[in-house]
């Protein structure tokens, strides 16, 4: 496996890149700090334990919480860690550091624009607001600065991807016969997925919402912009998760004291994500009128197949940990668990994150079930679910990885490892309380995104316990999480103020038990996979989008420049049924053949 031969820390080998990565991470942590602050305000407000803002301002807070955490925090971390991964695994710096700063700058400017629009909602003296939550469903309208900020931010991420592709192309010139190193492979496939996915919001914002907020067009089709949002909105969850997966694959085995179980399988997993992440977005719209049940069904089947790469990841990660534990002298059926380096916050954090992700996976399967979804859709169950996925699997893995990355990026030892361990455990504990109570409150029908879920005309009835207890649990969990964030930030700041240290480990990632030479060359054929991914997206989305435009008009019911008659459409719909069934069959078969191909 290619690895830095020099054996130094990252900052020794790539001082210029280390600065960019550090900046990206610090931006990310600033967003985490703000998001966490808003999180605890929300928690106390909606449980009616402590309210100090007006309830209509709750939605400004919630918008900020959502946008800062799932756009700014996660994606800034991603670009940082991906830059680390590409440069480390190709063992070469970026091609032009000015270009790297350019995309970092664009992302920052975009964030500042969107943040300004959101935070202006706190004061009446500025005539600007964006209380539209991170989903910005029209006809709710934000100030144009919000939409423009998002565009600039996304363009920044596109350029970041271009930067990494550029590194890879340059590397390929010099190493024509080598396989793509695994971390770079993961970065590239993730970015390909991102390019496809962002078409959704790019169109939604540039063609509809931005002109609409500027008054250039009068109306939009709410179902259309909503569908375009989820075209991006589901794959974006993998954009949050895949950097965490990458750390589980390339870092966790090493920290556990062993090697990655299988490089080929890791590649298969990322290819599956590239293929299946996007043609599933309609599963967020099971309850939407105006979308045929058939389309929902297709999204559901694709979603279920999307479980596969996550299940494979679970296997590989656990198997790699076991391998590590046995290298460290662990024995027994379960006894090996004890030999794992639990006192290492990097390991403990990632392992706890993985465990919580398993729980999140279960509630996700419930969400994905078209019918059961009716019971939980838009209840507090849903935030309960995604605080386990993005809020823990991603966030906690990022924090744990930081404990390893930060010394690499600064050349300074971590300020305090014990605090770090307490921090990750506290996150686990806090999330247990918060997510558990959210799931249960959701089953009682308590809605999400609601400042005061206490109603005049009726009360929610708890089977066991009471709503008050669930509220208390939610607040307790939220408080522990907030403390955990404070400890994390203290460690980041403490480390920044540390002196340089000489005895840091070298910048390396996990070796593999079964390397890329064991896998078919076709896995590295990115063009092929991209083409298939695009075809799947076209199959899954072209007919729903056409039907939505036909029903509601391209720019809303008033202006309908899409003169497709109903008859043609139902004919199309019929053809579609045929196509999609075929598509499902092919996907299934395809998955099967790839897998058997891989297995052989």
């Amino acid at each position, binding site marked *: 496996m290619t690895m830095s031969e020099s054996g130094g820390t990252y900052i020794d080998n790539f001082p210029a890149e280390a600065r960019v990565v550090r900046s990206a991470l610090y931006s990310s942590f600033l967003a985490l700090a703000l998001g966490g602050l808003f999180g605890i305000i929300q928690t106390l407000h909606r449980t009616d334990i402590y309210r100090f803002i007006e309830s209509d301002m709750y939605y400004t807070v919630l918008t900020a919480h959502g946008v800062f955490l799932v756009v700014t925090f996660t994606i800034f971390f991603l670009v940082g860690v991906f830059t680390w991964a590409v440069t480390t695994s190709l063992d070469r710096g970026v091609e032009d550091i000015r270009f790297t700063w350019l995309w970092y700058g664009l992302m920052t400017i975009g964030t500042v624009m969107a943040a300004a629009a959101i935070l202006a909602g706190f004061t009446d003296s500025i005539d600007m607001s964006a209380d539209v939550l991170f989903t910005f469903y029209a006809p709710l309208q934000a100030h144009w600065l919000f939409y423009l900020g998002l565009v600039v931010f996304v363009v920044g991420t596109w350029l970041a991807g271009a930067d990494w592709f550029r590194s890879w192309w340059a590397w390929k010139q010099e190493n024509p016969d080598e396989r793509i190193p695994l971390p770079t492979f993961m970065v590239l496939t993730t970015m390909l997925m991102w390019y496809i996915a962002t078409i959704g919001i790019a169109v939604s914002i540039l063609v509809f919402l931005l002109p609409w907020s500027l008054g250039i067009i009068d109306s939009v089709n709410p179902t259309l912009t909503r569908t375009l949002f989820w075209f991006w909105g589901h794959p974006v969850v993998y954009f949050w998760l895949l950097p965490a997966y990458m750390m589980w694959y390339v870092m966790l085995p090493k920290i556990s004291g062993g090697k990655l179980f299988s490089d080929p399988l890791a590649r298969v997993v990322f290819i599956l994500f590239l293929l299946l992440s996007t043609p599933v977005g309609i599963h967020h719209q099971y309850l939407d009128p105006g979308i045929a049940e058939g389309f929902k069904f297709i999204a559901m089947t694709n979603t279920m197949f999307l479980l596969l790469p996550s299940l494979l990841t679970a296997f590989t990660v656990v198997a790699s940990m076991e391998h590590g534990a046995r290298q460290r002298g662990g024995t*027994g059926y*379960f*006894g090996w*668990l*004890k030999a794992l380096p*639990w*006192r290492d916050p990097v390991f*403990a954090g990632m392992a*706890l994150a993985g*465990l919580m992700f398993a729980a999140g996976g279960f509630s996700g399967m419930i969400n994905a079930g078209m019918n059961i979804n009716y019971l939980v859709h838009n209840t507090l169950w849903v935030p309960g679910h995604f605080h386990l996925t993005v809020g823990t699997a991603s966030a906690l893995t990022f924090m744990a990885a930081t404990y390893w990355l930060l010394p690499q990026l600064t050349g300074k030892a971590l300020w305090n490892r014990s605090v770090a*361990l*307490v921090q990750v*455990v506290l996150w*686990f*504990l806090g999330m*247990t*309380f918060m997510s*558990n109570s959210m799931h*249960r409150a959701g089953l009682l029908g308590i809605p999400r995104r609601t400042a005061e879920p206490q109603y005049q005309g009726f009360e929610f009835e708890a*089977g*066991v*316990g009471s709503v008050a*207890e669930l509220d208390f*649990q939610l607040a307790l969990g939220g408080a522990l999480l907030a403390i955990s964030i404070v400890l994390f930030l203290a460690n980041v700041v403490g480390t920044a103020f540390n002196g340089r240290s000489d005895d840091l480990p070298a910048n390396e990632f996990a070796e593999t038990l079964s390397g890329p030479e064991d896998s078919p060359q076709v896995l590295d054929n990115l063009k092929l996979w991209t083409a298939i991914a695009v075809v799947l997206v076209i199959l899954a989305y072209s007919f729903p989008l056409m039907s939505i435009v036909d029903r509601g008009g391209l720019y809303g019911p008033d202006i309908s420049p899409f003169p497709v008659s109903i008859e043609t459409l139902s004919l199309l719909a019929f053809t579609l049924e045929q196509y999609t069934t075929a598509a499902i069959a092919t996907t299934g078969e395809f998955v099967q053949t790839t897998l058997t191909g891989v297995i052989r």
Partner: protein
Amino acid sequence: MRVSKEALLIILAFIAPIIVELRTVLAWANIELTVLESVVLGLAIVALVLVWAFFPEDESSSETPERQLSNGD
């Protein structure tokens, strides 16, 4: 100490979800606990674990129930 401080921390963390939902699980078995009772029960479990962890039974036992606990989750 039977386990390291860090391991104890992790064990306690793994017990937390069990304690949190013990009451619901017991309710399925028609055992209804009040909040106070379940808090007391939870504390008792934690106390038991602490006693187990701190009372030295020599250095001999490394095959301790720690595993079952971390897997019971």
